[in-house]
């Protein structure tokens, strides 16, 4: 089974850091602007904001690492298999016959570290679930074109 590029941990960690910063900024803003004698937030000071940031950031980084460890995918004879999820482990099997189209996406952060995401669409109600992040652009390109070919090779039967 194939694993993701290790650098995807950086993408996920930075994403987690940004959201941790956002939460901490809200806590910090409350700490700075709230009146000191307010009953509920009077005790809240800037060190709490730092604490919130550290906790959220640590959690985010741990999750990023765990997500990387769990994520596997495999291009099989006539299906794609994907395993993911830290808390809820999800294993998805997508038959090529059901592939509607295949996208390659690159977010700003992914572009900086040079990675891509391949998204496989089906007509199913969980279609958007099937995405493979953390691929090198070459691998993403290759995966996209091979999936496209395999999807075309199998009968165009979408069962809709």
């Amino acid at each position: 089974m194939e694993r993701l590029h290790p650098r995807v941990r950086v993408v996920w960690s930075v994403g987690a850091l940004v959201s941790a910063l956002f939460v901490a900024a809200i806590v910090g803003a409350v700490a700075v602007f709230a009146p000191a004698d307010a009953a509920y937030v009077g005790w809240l000071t800037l060190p709490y904001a730092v604490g919130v940031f550290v906790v959220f950031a640590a959690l985010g980084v741990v999750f990023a690492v765990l997500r990387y460890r769990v994520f596997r995918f495999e291009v099989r004879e006539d299906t794609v298999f994907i395993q993911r999820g830290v808390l809820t482990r999800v294993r998805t099997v997508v038959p090529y016959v059901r592939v509607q189209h295949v996208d390659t996406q690159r977010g700003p952060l992914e572009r900086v570290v040079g990675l891509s995401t391949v998204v496989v669409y089906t007509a199913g109600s969980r279609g958007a679930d099937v995405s493979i992040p953390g691929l090198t652009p070459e691998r993403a390109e290759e995966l996209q074109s091979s999936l496209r070919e395999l999807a075309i090779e199998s009968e165009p039967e979408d069962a809709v």
Partner: protein
Amino acid sequence: MKLHPLSVPYRALTKGVQLGWAAIFGIAVGSGSGAFVEYWPFVVAGVAVLALLGVGYQYLYYQRFSYELTADTLDIGSGVFARREREIPLRRVQNVDVTRNVLQRALGIATVNVETAGGGSTEAKLECVSAAEAERIQSEIRRLKKGTSAEEAAAEPEADVLYELDDSSLVAYSFLSFDPRVASGLVVVFPLLGPLAAALGIGGIRNGAAAAVLVVLVGLGLLVLVAGVWLASAAFRFVKFYGFRLRREGDDLRYERGLLNRYTGTIPLDKLQSVSVTENVLMRRFGYAGLAVETAGYAPGDAPSGGSEAAVPFAPRDDVVALAQTLEPFDSIELERPPSRARRRFAGRYSILAGVAVVAAYGAHAVWGVPFWWLSVALFPVAVAGGHYRWKHLGHQEQAGYAVTRSGFWSRATTVVPYYRLQTVVESQTVFQRRWNLASVVYDTAGSRRLAGGDATAHDVDETDATSLRDRAIDRLRESLGSE
């Protein structure tokens, strides 16, 4: 062709009422109702001008709207200011729904909604045509889709009625089913509870006798409330499903229903993704069930035209299963329950919730002096029983061509999914399921079920069984495609 001339006053009136409500509400909120009294001549003049403008606009809308049914398209030109010309290929048409509300029935007109595959919203809306014209459009589109000539269509035998809801069944159904939308109306009641309690002086009660009286009163009040909601729900159901009839016309199921507003709609069988036998706890007790079908891209019931959620709302369970088997020829349903450790898992999960509730009740007692907190301990046996019943109504079965899943105690759905309709197969395991070596398998189809039950899922199967279920499902999908 043009719309029916009466659609001008009809549209002007309905749009006017909608806008009028918004305007009155806006003005009342913005300035207080005093503005109406003080400036009434201006208000009346303003309303008159707006009404004239509205009627004028609707007249132009009527003038500029035309439709034409050709051999293979439905062409519609519409728009007063921005013109829009559409050609809808008839083979893409999924449903033609006809709606008639009370006013429309009085005027002898109807709204026609044309739905196409893949879109959640209505593709074309003819508001309004005469009732006879609506009927004609519906049957003409069906005829043209099939490609038969007018003579052949006329020679076809009258469609056979698959199912009809007679009056006594309708009454039984009204009382045995429950419309969740009525319960949501209860939300209105909750904000009133606080002031009510204060007015009755409940906060001051300390001695035992008064508290006992209070408990009895609250209990009685709840009973009255439940009875009221139940009656309201029954009335809603009665009005909605009055005169329900399901017919089969070639590859379509066609239903009609409604006491005040009359709906007719079609369910295209060649787009059928799955069928479900649904029973709520009361219906199950008396041996009745309903049949829900799911089609691709469009689930009857969530379209703007407001179709029926059910192909059959209410019938004896065996009849429902037999009817479902005429749509999808599956074998008799003999389900396998999850392993008994799943029952322990659910009992444990609900006990945790009960524990949280007990802690909260004790906390409320400690902080605000709420009496009888220890009554909440009774939640633990309820949690264990809940776990048992949750488990009891889970199940799955693999048949030659179908996967069958069942879930739900209060409202139980037994869903039959043909393997050849599968889109993806998903095996999922939460942290807690991993502890018990259990997993769930989701059979995902192109259906658009948003209301009832969610996806067809075999819940809490043994881990290794789940993996083989998943792989076998894919194998069977492959086989069914190969054999076609």
